[in-house]
């Protein structure tokens, strides 16, 4: 059962998720080392203590600020799931495009260490026994997620345009 490995508050900016001073690093294969670089959490990530599928719980407006895609790719590198009361638009789009799992759950209450199960329509905190409904992602993004991310989606579309699919 996945655990909550980090709990954060409102308005976590992309500067906190991926500080600007590391922006010269762009490739998704290289960005994970700088995820939450100024948090102690960065050490836990880099030392392999955080299993894939682990959960970050946030309040409102997670990922506000810059359009830097590194903020999504660095978390995708550890296959984290982000459950927030709300996400900033560009971060949410980047996450869908790159396949970072984002769940909008306005009423979830959880603490670090809680075991959490993410279902199709609700999040169940197994530690407290409480269930909270999931707000579906903007429908605009679902087609891209279903295609396996934006690169795969665009590739399909390019092939269609050239009559190859």
């Amino acid at each position, binding site marked *: 059962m996945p655990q909550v490995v980090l709990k954060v508050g409102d308005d976590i900016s992309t*500067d906190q998720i991926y*500080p600007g001073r590391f922006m010269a690093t762009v490739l998704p294969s290289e960005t994970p080392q700088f995820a939450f670089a100024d948090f102690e959490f960065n050490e836990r990530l880099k030392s392999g203590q955080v299993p894939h599928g682990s959960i970050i719980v946030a309040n409102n407006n997670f990922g506000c600020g*810059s359009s830097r*895609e590194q903020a999504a790719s660095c978390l995708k590198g550890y296959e984290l799931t982000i459950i927030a009361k709300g996400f*900033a638009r*560009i971060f949410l789009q*980047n996450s869908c495009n790159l396949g970072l799992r984002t769940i909008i759950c306005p009423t979830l209450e959880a603490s670090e260490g809680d075991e959490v199960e993410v279902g199709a329509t609700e999040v169940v905190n197994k530690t407290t026994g409480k269930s909270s409904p999931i707000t579906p992602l903007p429908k605009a993004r679902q087609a891209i997620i279903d295609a396996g991310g*934006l*690169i795969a989606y665009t590739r399909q579309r390019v092939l269609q345009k050239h009559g190859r699919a």
Partner: protein
Amino acid sequence: MAGMTIVQKILARATGRPSVEVGEVVEPTVDLAMSHENAALVINQFLDVFKGTGLEPKVWDPSRIAIIFDHRVPAESSKTATNQKKVREFVGQHGIQRFHDIRGDEGGICHQVLVEYGYSRPGMVIVGTDSHTTTHGAMGAFAFGIGATEMAGVWSLGSVFNVEVPATIKVVVNGTLPAGVLAKDLVLFIVGKLTAEGANFKVIEFHGEAIRRMPVSGRLVLCNMSVEAGATSGIVPCDEETLRYLRDEAGVREPIDAVAPDADAAYDRVLEIDASSLAPQVACPHTVDNVKPVGDVAGTVVHQVVIGSCTNGRLDDLEVAASIVKGRKLARGVRMIVFPASWRIYQAALKRGVLTDLVEAGAVIMNPGCGCCLGIHQGALGDGEVALSTTNRNFKGRMGNPKSEVYLCSPAVAAASALTGVITDPRS
């Protein structure tokens, strides 16, 4: 049926339909696609799209792509220099003409260059791999930030996929801004009212007497900072001032689509503001919506004053600052860093003696670029230091050090405070 907002009209045109409804999903064609150094990542993702297809990677329309180097200029590391080299080679291979390299004759910060060169025009759909792409709403465009992978899709097919038609918040600014109160104060006040996520997934349309009287330079400040309330875009309807700027300053000769909202357009909400009642505003650490009148934080010690950026690095901003510090000296213990928004502005300020006034007072003039604003290239803060800046974000760690603090303000507040070493009301 209610009429349409500007953004609905632009999206209807860009999808070849008579009308679009708020909340429906559309795929508008893109008129202008802008990137900066992160074009290196766009190129990587773009080439990935074509992998295994047997097709030659080819951008959909090189004349609609603009690339401006601004984030790390001149390169601060060999890594950046190598990425810039890769972008230069791509630009040459694909025949991208709107490329602004690190040059004193045509370079600058992307958002200023796009406007100065007349690339941003009313009625356009503009996307940029930069959140402050909202800036171009000042020219009457629907302009919004996207990620690098999304831009790779635009470069491939010329449209931006699956855009939900956004609802619009109408902000009406009545009256006249008092002396010493600038566009930056107005937009900080608005962000404080709306909150950092109050306009998330929405557009802010600016109206009212104070907006009609505001030059393009001020409207750019409003739209630039709209993203700090979470807005997809800010937008000012095209009017005589927009046309004057495009014709006289940007040298645009082609016909202009002066798209305007319908009188009966439906708005998500309407916010009315009396400009004449405003004081200078300051956004306090560590969120842009933590806004207070300058009097509430007057006396706070500052170590670094920054004037510049895509927000407040235009000629009128530099002139305001110079008029305050001319013939005087910065307080000891304060560093004042000035970075104009473009080299055209740099040259104009040089010719008018504005840069001389600033330097003689003790300021350091940097080349146009973004670096200092986001802590990636010079102007970093020490542990426990406080910056007062005309830039757009004060997030924890924004200027390169999570153990520092950033306050945001207008160029007038910044310059007045540089003379005293503490946050100071420029009207005093």
